[in-house]
């Protein structure tokens, strides 16, 4: 995660028994590890690059990157139907991110202060293992059928929150579990009120975890499909729109290629920069 964590990890690896070290540094294992790494990277990035290339071809579904054209992008920008779902998703994800930051900070702090956090931790993280469609269906049955509520933005928000929150809590926990509670005693002793202790001492030290929770909350919400599908009511988010377009109308597929390419082109550098600032730059200070 952070540079220091990596450092401790590598130091521990050095301290391992010599037999283990010989195994892990033997040339054959190194070659194998490198090979597997290259394979994984290729498997991740080739399809993405292919998608981007295809978005510039006249007939993406044909699978031949020729002839090159901006036609798909022109069509995309002429079309206005994808814009409301995008705005909905941006707003929704921003909301989920903010609520995730607040809730995961609260829960993370509470868990690290408990004498026996085991059972509560398991309960909090359990939603991670519930399949998306199951969760979506369960939420639908509970909200629509049992409580007889009208589904809409709020239920999508709720479903995405349930999905993103456990990840965010995990991120905060990574930092919070290393937080030395005695620092708060020291601050109190020096005259800091409870609120000041939080803002001056705890928040700055937990910040990487909280910001990480915000980023992941946003990403998880922005890409969430199976749960939203069930509880959307009549609303449409970006993933729902893309999915519907890709699944039903052949004629729309080319502009989906362009749209996802644009999203990738914006998201990847922004996220890269964010993580660099968060974990490399802040860690050095």
């Amino acid at each position, binding site marked *: 995660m952070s540079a220091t964590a990596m450092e401790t990890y590598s130091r521990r690896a050095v301290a391992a028994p010599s037999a283990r070290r010989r195994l892990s540094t033997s040339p054959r294992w190194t070659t194998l590890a490198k090979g597997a790494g290259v394979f994984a990277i290729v498997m991740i990035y080739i399809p993405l690059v292919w998608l981007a290339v295809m978005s510039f071809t006249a007939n993406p579904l044909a699978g031949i990157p020729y002839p090159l054209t901006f036609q798909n992008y022109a069509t995309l920008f002429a079309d206005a139907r994808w814009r409301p779902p995008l705005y909905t998703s941006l707003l929704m994800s921003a909301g989920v991110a903010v609520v995730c930051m607040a809730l995961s900070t609260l829960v993370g702090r509470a868990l690290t202060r408990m004498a026996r956090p085991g059972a509560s931790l398991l309960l909090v993280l359990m939603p991670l293992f519930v399949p998306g469609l199951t969760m979506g269906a369960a939420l639908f049955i509970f909200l629509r059928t049992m409580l007889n509520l009208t589904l809409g933005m709020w239920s999508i928000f709720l479903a995405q929150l349930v999905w993103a929150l456990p990840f965010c809590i995990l991120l905060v926990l990574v930092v919070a579990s290393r937080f030395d509670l005695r620092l708060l005693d020291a*601050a109190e002793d020096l005259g800091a009120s409870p609120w000041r202790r939080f803002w001056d001492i705890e928040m700055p030290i937990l910040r990487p975890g909280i910001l990480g929770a915000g980023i992941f909350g946003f990403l998880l919400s922005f890409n969430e499909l199976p749960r939203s599908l069930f509880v959307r009511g009549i609303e449409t988010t970006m993933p729902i729109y893309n999915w519907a377009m890709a699944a039903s109308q052949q004629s729309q597929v080319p502009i989906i290629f362009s749209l996802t390419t644009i999203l990738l082109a914006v998201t990847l550098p922004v996220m890269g920069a964010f993580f660099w600032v968060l974990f490399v730059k802040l860690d050095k200070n």
Partner: protein
Amino acid sequence: MSSSTTFADAPAAARSAPPILEIVNAVHAYDGVVALDNVSVSAAPGEFLTILGESGSGKTTLLRLISGLEKPYRVGTLKLEGVDVREVPAFQRNCTTVFQNYALFPHMTVGANVEYGLKVRGVPPKDREARAREALRLVQLQEMYDRKVHQLSGGQRQRVALARALVPRPAILLLDEPLGALDEKLRVDMQVELMQLHKQLGMTFIYITHSQEEALTMSDRIILMRKGKIEQAGPPAEIFDSPISSFAAKFMGVDNCFEGELVAVSDGWASVAVGERRIDGRWTGKSAPQPGAKVAVGMRAEWLQLSDAPPDASGEHNVLDCVAEASIYKGKYLDRTVKTALGPLKARIWDAASSARHPSFVRWKKGDCIVMNA
């Protein structure tokens, strides 16, 4: 230690002034474990009070009760500067702590750490910085204002923690084994610096340690704790010379301690039967028990004299015959063990050349022999 304007020399504390700290009958327990058992403590303004005791005896708990970080289970009186603070939270009490682990804020510079107590009191940044720099000068770290905490050595962190606690100018400075993590040489230097600082600032220091040597060197008064209770309290010389119990004696480094049966006690002198032998000494215990009660006899190794001829029977000494056993060379002195009717005794010999090679008698002054509660 450099001179300073705001940390000006204070007049010697008036011992007759009302106590700056007053605790009566404090009781505290952590889920069933009694940490403090009816402890009463008071401190005069400007006093250097040391709380001495082994690990787990409740020293830190007592300090946290004073700072307010721990709320006592029950307490009769808890007053700081004459004001009842039983319901006052820690952040509103006029005392600061140097923690055992220093607890410096890792995300702040040295300067920001030292200034923090002023920042939360709303002191403007300029004054804050001036006062922080001055406190750092006081602990000889003036160059370190902009450093990060993790760039400091253990001794420097200790000084930063000290400066941070001093800056808000508390009525009482609490120090929880502040030198425990430092190496021997640094510890001795810091002892001297802390004593000078105490004299210069005129502040009340309450100092925790488990080292009797540190307590004897530094304090005006020592409180010896044992299992959450106060075993003995008094000036260093009193505790050193007249421990009231075998526990206090052993803690203060009395090497030879034996159990015996009190035969007679009068005018501060006691006569004890240890096995077949009669030993006479000063009674230093609390109220003297009836003859026949179990008591303890103690003598320091340095007061024992070894000889190969029977000493004159002057009546001023206890005398036993002995057989020499092992001796341990300690550089400045020699520790010699001899077997006697009481059991093995340790004698400390400073002048090895002129002492008996094969001693057969050991003697010590009755005034140097203490008799106390078992």
